[in-house]
């Protein structure tokens, strides 16, 4: 099989992944986009490994590492998404502007920090059952 086929497929996958990351606002879909990008890289690595007939199989070894890293990233990512859902009751990436830079921001920042303290004190049980 020519090297071109897997490379084109991998470029497509990486492009779709990048698009999903940029266009979607749902945090879980963003994670899926990242996963697509990582798997596109895996395809690249394995294809190059086969093409070079690499005696050390560096490409395959790296692909294994990438799979492990992707799993760790997704595990941690879902934990963070869960944390955000508990504190914000939604996981819309674009709606998170509490920390954003504000003009003449000192009052606004203090307001925000007071608001944070209230938010932190609210009951976690009530939060967990609220639909998004």
């Amino acid at each position: 099989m020519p090297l071109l086929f897997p490379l084109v497929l991998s470029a497509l996958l990486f492009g779709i992944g990048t698009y999903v990351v940029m266009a979607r606002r749902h945090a879980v879909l963003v994670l899926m986009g990242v996963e697509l990008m990582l798997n596109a890289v895996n395809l690249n690595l394995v294809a190059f490994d086969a093409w070079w007939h690499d005696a050390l199989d560096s490409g395959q070894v790296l692909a294994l590492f990438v799979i492990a890293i992707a799993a760790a990233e997704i595990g941690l990512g879902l934990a963070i998404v869960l944390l955000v859902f508990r504190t914000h009751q939604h996981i819309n990436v674009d709606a998170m502007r509490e920390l954003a830079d504000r003009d003449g921001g000192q009052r606004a920042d203090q307001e925000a920090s007071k608001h944070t303290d209230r938010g932190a004190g609210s009951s976690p049980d009530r939060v967990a059952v609220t639909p998004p």
Partner: protein
Amino acid sequence: MTTQVIDWWAIAPPLCLVAAAITALLVDAFAPRGSRALPCAISLVGVLAALLASAALSSHSRATFCLPASGIEQPVNCSWVIDDVTLAWWLIILVSTGLIGMLLQPSVHRGELPGGELYFLLLSSATGALCLAAARDLITLLVALETLSLPSFALVGLRRRNRRGAEAALKFFIVSVVATAFTLLGISMVYGATGSVAAGRIATSVATGAAVEPVIAVGMVLTLVGFGFKVAVVPFQVWVPDTYVGAPIGVAAYLSVVSKAAGLAGLVIVLVRFFSPYVDLWSPMVAVAAALTMTLGNLAALRQSHVVRLLAWSSVAQAGYLLVPLAAGGSEADIGAMQAYALMYAIVNVSAFAVVGAVSAWGAVTVDDFRGLVRTRPWLGLALTFALLCLAGLPPGIVGLVAKVAIFRSAVEGELTWLAVVLAINVALGLVYYLRFVAALLTPAPVRAAVAEPPASGQPGGQREPHGAELFVVIVTFIAAAVLSIFPGPLFFVLP
């Protein structure tokens, strides 16, 4: 089938940290309640052991995990190399990790952060930083970069039920994993074009022109993305202010010092060890990135009144200064100047974050809240003043001035006169906000100050005496910066 001989001494420092990390986690899980200082103590022992182990390595350079030579065109190549440059990075990383570990202890003491998890994550991340500075192949680099990053996401979001912490962690996480995905794409391209992941073999294949040039150039640029993200180079700086503000202050200090130093080490390794034949291609790129980073960082810092946000943008500007020696070509003298600057920056930045952390625990958020700190809390106020003057490069903060002169000289010697001019303008620009902050600290009459007129100590947000560990960090960093200002010689121990 041959077995590989591993030089255990060469990997002892990261192993010390790993052992301490696991011990801290287990001890915290099984120790009786009330022993909140144990994880911190264990991790400090680990950091000290790692420092001693790396001091024992300093006599000559070592290498392990080597590929045997095959033929003339493929010489011996080692994945793990410890030389003077590596050891200097290790010193910076270990000392700052130890200090930041102490800085975080007060929050653990107050029960805001879980001790075992905190120190486990901190030391795991620092292990990644150490591995990054010693790595000489793309796989080790990548795994080290991820070991550095993944625990730091968790560190940012570690405060329970904190809206801002969660938001900061999510922003940091998403930008970081996308940057890593681009780095991986770059690595796969470099591997595809050269057929190897080892530094020496890639450099040989690039130098002989055996590799496909455009592919490898694009691969190189993409590989830099992940490291540029760690250093907060423009255009990868967007996460910095939000994450620093949302994270616990000690973690913000960690991101601005250890994570940045490791990212710089990674950039130096990738550019100098892998792609030195392409110096004409990457040197102008790094120069433009450095100029943009310092200018944007300083301009954005000018209009900040939130103290942590101010320090965040100042750390972006400092990242720009740190890149200048690399733009000048990354010779040994350049790397020495960069490391001298990084050491200075690590000490004074930890000092600044320590004071800000101690003061903001009683509700000070903006520069106005810090007004008159030198009068009310002379030690804290003077230490913060001195740290800011060092960051600005003004006497009596001579150490900052000396470090700035070093990078300035490497820009001039690298024939980057325009970058030297941009650097000078930016240093002047930085004076504006550093001095405004210093002026606020020195102002005699507090206008409206949480610091000067604390609410009664029983109320929430009331004034709290700084924890002993915080004071210790403040005093140690202050003395270190003062001593280096009088005798700047040791700063340049890495210079040939």
